[in-house]
């Protein structure tokens, strides 16, 4: 299976750049998720890999071979579209048979492959049904079988789970990934759903405004984001603005103005210059709360702690999210639901986190608001 290299792809639509010098390497047999908000150029990127869209400049390479000008039909890069696009006048069997027939494979081989693909996606009992008679999940699996039966080397998945019910979407994540991995195809999966990317991908490429910002394993991207945007988009974060302070063994300090005074935040050790403006991001799941007993009120908080007042508690099933009002804005903490009884609105709490869970970035030149915008 080929290694895909995208080299400086640019595509403009009426003056708007859908991709702006996009470069990315997808390894042989890898399941890569391109994760980005709506309109970030994900789908354009996918269409350029299979040739449905021609880049204005830049190259697409399969195993080092330039395929930029190769027609779609010869690239062996099958697309699984978000609406499945099962051909409405064909049965499940005929849909899966489409590619073998078009490519004029020997009939016996074709029949065998089609049958095994239909079996693999558990659609034997529906082989002679028409697409409109199938449920969303069945349509999705048929589309997958059709793509897998095409002898493609590359599988492109354009938000393949988007049109499904929430529950089914969760169930199909594992199933889809394992079936694709079994075929050892080089796969690119485009999604705006960070949970989906985290759960399914070998590696995640975060895309924004037509450029890849960070590529890494789900853990890397989640734990060690490269920019405040990635920190906030892949798993929600609490974001703070402050000034770089001194560094110690294992952590650095950031001074954050808070009301009339200031708070000292402890963050992962950083080499950034003391006194420079910085942005701190802490995943809401890493944010901890400590209830202050009424009699312990007053006094200054130790470094790494600052206080706020609980405003709301959202019960989400396995977790709860506690929203705490502070002079620096609302701070959210995602806690296990057994903590539900521990907090109540109007409680005073101390906010803290393990320093190694707090990422620190230089203040982006266009300003923080622009950096965090989801478009």
């Amino acid at each position, binding site marked *: 299976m080929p290694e895909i290299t995208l080299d400086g792809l640019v595509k403009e639509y009426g003056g708007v750049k859908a991709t702006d010098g996009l470069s990315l390497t997808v390894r042989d047999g890898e399941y890569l998720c391109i994760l980005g908000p709506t309109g970030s150029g994900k789908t354009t990127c996918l269409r350029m890999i299979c040739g449905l869209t021609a880049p204005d400049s830049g190259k697409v390479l399969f195993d080092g071979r330039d395929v930029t000008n190769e027609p779609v039909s010869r*690239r062996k890069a099958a697309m699984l579209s978000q609406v499945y696009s099962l051909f409405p*006048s064909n049965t499940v069997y005929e849909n899966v048979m489409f590619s073998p027939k078009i490519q004029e494979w020997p009939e016996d081989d074709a029949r065998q492959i089609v049958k095994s693909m239909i079996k693999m996606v558990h659609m034997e009992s529906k082989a002679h049904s028409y697409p409109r008679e199938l449920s969303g999940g069945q349509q999705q699996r048929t589309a997958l079988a059709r793509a897998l039966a095409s002898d493609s080397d590359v599988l492109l998945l354009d938000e393949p789970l988007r049109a499904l019910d929430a529950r089914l979407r969760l169930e199909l994540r594992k199933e889809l990934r394992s079936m694709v991995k079994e075929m050892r195809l080089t796969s690119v999966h485009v999604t705006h759903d960070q949970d989906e990317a985290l759960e399914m991908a070998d590696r995640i490429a975060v895309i924004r405004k037509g450029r890849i910002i960070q590529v890494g394993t789900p853990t890397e991207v989640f734990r060690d984001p490269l920019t405040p945007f990635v920190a906030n988009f892949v798993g929600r974060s609490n974001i703070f603005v402050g000034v770089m302070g001194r560094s110690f063994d294992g952590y650095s300090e950031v001074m954050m103005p808070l009301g009339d005074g200031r708070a000292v935040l402890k963050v992962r050790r950083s080499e950034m210059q003391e006194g420079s403006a910085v942005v701190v991001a802490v995943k809401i799941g890493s944010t901890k709360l400590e209830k202050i007993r009424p009699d312990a009120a007053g006094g200054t908080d130790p470094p790494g702690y600052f206080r706020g007042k609980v405003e709301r508690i959202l019960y989400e099933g396995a977790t709860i999210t506690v929203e705490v009002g502070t002079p620096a804005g609302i701070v959210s903490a995602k806690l296990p639901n057994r903590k539900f009884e521990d907090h109540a609105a109007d409680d005073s709490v101390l906010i803290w986190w393990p320093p190694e869970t707090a990422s620190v970035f230089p203040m982006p030149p266009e300003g923080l608001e622009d950096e965090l915008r989801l478009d």
Partner: protein
Amino acid sequence: MSLLKKINEMSDSRRSRKAWFGAVCVVFLTLIIIPSIFVVFRLFTDWSSVDGVIADGATMGVIKGALFNSFSIAFIVTVIDVIVGIPMAWLLVRKHFQGKRYLDTLMDMPLAFPTAVLGISVVMFWGAPEGIDIPGLGLNLSPYAMLILLHTIFTYPYMVRSLSAILEQIEPNYETAAMTLSASRFTAVRTITLPLFRAGLVTGFILCFARSLSETGGTYIALKMMGVQSTFFTGPTFINDAKSLLGPDSAMGPMILISVLMIVLAIALLVAARLMMVRLKIPTSRVWPQFGRRLSRGTVPKIKDALSIAFLLVIVLIPSFYIFAFLTQPVAAVDYGALLSSIGLSFLVAGAAVVFDIVFGIPMALYIARNRRTVLGKMLDEAVNVPLIIPTTALGFSLALFWGMFYSGDSTAVFTAMVILGHISFTYPLVVRNIIGAVEEADASYEEVAMTLGAKPFQAFSKVLVPIIKSSIIAGAILSFTRSLGETGATTSISGAVKTVPVYIMDLVNKDSYAEAAMCSIILIVICFILIFAVRMIINRGERHA
């Protein structure tokens, strides 16, 4: 097989796809657009002959009168169609009742009648023409009123069809929402649905207006049967008759002038209608709740539905079918040889035109549907409408002038080829429009996915898209075929030597052989119905699997 393979391979190259589309554009331009409006160039190169006509008060008077008749009749007919078409479209789309399917089929029947036949039938029903023994209503109508009744019949289905097509796309939810907010149905429809409707109104308006403006055969026959064919003219009947009235030489100037005037006015109207589609506002700011409620309850809606059906029966269907009354008479002698050869010729012309329309119309429709936002896409989209709005008689005349530059012999085969080209011009837009609609509804991802699965672009088109839009292609083909079959004006103005069925029937009427003309019409109608029925059966069988 090897040819198909070659096409498949070629479709993979961007350059050959571009070359093919370029060829389609060239064909469209040189075979359809330029010949259709060539007469406008002729106006300038041949100004001397036109100059004389403008100075000639008497001829000018006739021309002005003919133009006035054509445009005012078309306008009145279209307004009538709108008024009675809206409730009928409503009935067909929103109401469910027994026998709706039959009503739906009855609606299309006038489209299967050649207008020449309708001409005979309508005058027989309303008037009491000399030389026909079958009693009609015997009303002493003016030719103007008679033509309005006639033109209403074959424009009405176009209006109802375009209105119901739009209405089907408008969700009833809006109306329901308005009604839960305590609007009466009348108010909800007037203020919510009607404004969403205007695209359909304008399309219907253009179609009906153009159809009425173009009509020649039925109009001429009606005027002839009333004995006023040489005193009362519409634009097309004037062009049709000018040569025999004024002599071949002195007819040229007036024919050029009136053709150009009709073409220019028609195109100006198309542009105006397009602008109206954007600007037209249906006033919604005032409501009259009491009045609306009274109109929405009790007997008023029922009366409205009953009137719609009554109109269809009395004004459209009965006059159309009245020609079958001839079956009560002793069977007239029919020259079957001549009739069948003219039917054969008509089928040849219509068949050739439809095949051409499909081969060159589908790529055009695909391009327009998929490139709506590009400049070329928009231009082609407008250009395709031009032959639709140009009165076919003027179009035929223009085409004859154009090809006359290259050929001056008198071979019937060449004239037949020219007639086919003429019929292509005005049927092409019907096929293209129908397919554009279908392609726009078919998600582009079907073809795209097919290509990523290894299909060449032509395979993606033929194996994936065609099955999806098949019924629209067939519908467009039927529409074009019947439209071509019924056409008189374009045929006669290209060549008098090509005797298609409607021309043959018109000749019989001219010879006062009404009974034979009627018999021929009945045979023709029966053949048409069998054909349409057969095609529907085939489609239905296909759709059971789809």
